């Protein structure tokens, strides 16, 4: 059973586009991309930079460290091996954003 943690509001993310939060000790980067909220592990699998300090370009999350581009849905990087962990996101009726440390793919 997924455990949900309320970490942000949609209204806030709409303005900021990205936000770093900590869920149960795990650093998580939230992104607002094309009307959807995504949660990925904040620490890039490549060289441990913060994805939350990156850019959002054409629907992808771009790591500021070495420009790896991640699909926010799957965590898969363009032309690279490995996979950035993604987490399930739930939006409450009031616009509250909750994250579970279950994989996005598993929950959805």
């Amino acid at each position, binding site marked *: 059973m997924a455990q949900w943690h309320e970490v942000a509001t949609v209204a806030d993310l709409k303005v900021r586009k990205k936000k770093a939060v900590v869920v149960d000790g795990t650093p998580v980067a939230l992104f607002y991309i094309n009307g959807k909220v995504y949660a990925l592990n904040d620490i890039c699998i490549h*060289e441990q*930079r913060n994805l939350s300090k*990156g*850019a959002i*370009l054409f629907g992808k999350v*771009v790591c*500021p*460290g070495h*420009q790896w581009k991640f699909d926010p849905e799957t965590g898969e990087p363009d*032309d690279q091996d490995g996979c950035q962990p993604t987490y399930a996101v739930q939006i409450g009726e009031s616009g509250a954003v909750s994250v579970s440390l279950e994989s996005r793919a598993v929950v959805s």
Partner: protein
Amino acid sequence: MTAVRTVAIVGGGQAASVATRTLRRRGYDGSIVIFGDEPHRPYQRPPLSKEYLAEGDGSGLFLLPEDWTATHDVDVHTSARVMALDAGAGRLVLEDGTTAQADAILLATGGRPRRLPGVEGSPVHYLRTKADADSLRASIGPGARVVIVGAGFIGAEVASSALSLGADVTVIEAAGVPLQRVLGEQLGAVCAGIQRDANVDLRTGVAVNEVREEGENVVVDTSDGPIVGDVAVVAIGILPNQELAEASGLVVGNGIHVDEYCRTSVPSVYAAGDVANQLHPLLGVRLRVEHFDNASKQAAVAANNILGRHTRSEDPHWFWSDQFGVNLQCVGHPSDSDEVILRGDLESRDFTAFFLHEGKIRAAFSMNRGDDIAVARELITMGASVPSATLADTDMDLFDALEMA
């Protein structure tokens, strides 16, 4: 055009690996043979001056693990030097006399360090290969006096890694500031600042006359007097390994000449990476670029074109450096710009400098602002003009500028 069934790759570095993976990703199921002249399977070079030198951890180094090449039926030959190429016939001759035949050949022979004349001997190091990094690492310990000739990216990264190993580091640079030719006076001075703050004894505007062994010491004779060390590292650039191509009649000149499809002057022979001198569509000039990302991009382009998928190599060039805890990135070509706009703060090393030419963004250089670089790359590709006030104001979202451009 008959379908390509055999691809031979000369060289076993980043370009060879990316070309191989691209060929398989695109569904090519013919044979792939890689000939690398080093004793190691393909590995990446960027960590050799950074993490690998500082920490000795080689786990992330190798690019085509054996289980991957076994699964994907890729034939990797190590310590296999190609001695001759019959470009028209698609035939390679190896050092041991064996030959290989291929429908398409990718030359990814890279480069070798430019050497100072007369400068050899055990305390004098050059850095290009894993073996070079291993031998350099073995000679640097706490208190070792390391003298580095050249304050470019490799020199600065070696300095940063040597410091983290506890060495005393002196860097000698002929220009007035590091990276002067690329970045100019002001930004080069910021690069000098991060070295000096980290405790590097950086001597700029100093020419090296001679490096010699004196007993246990290595002495670097400079225009500023002699500098005595235990280890000297010469980091003054590389020369392209173009001899094989040249001997086989391909057009060369500061590298192997290729067009935007990474094709050499002979059909079915391609070149990529440090050795390739490419006509760049975005810039309209020939350039030989010695960076990881360029090697990856050109290799992917060559692989696509080998398979008949018309693809051009036309992205702005991008490179990075990690040194002294600062992440440096540059995209595009700062040279021949007529205006520089600063976004952020030089002092705190949190900035991006935009290089404009007649109002259009040509290049961007950042310290610790890699998110700007992602957007800048798009703006450069578009040849966009963005109001200077927007570029200079960190409260203005660059992505909005991209959407409006």
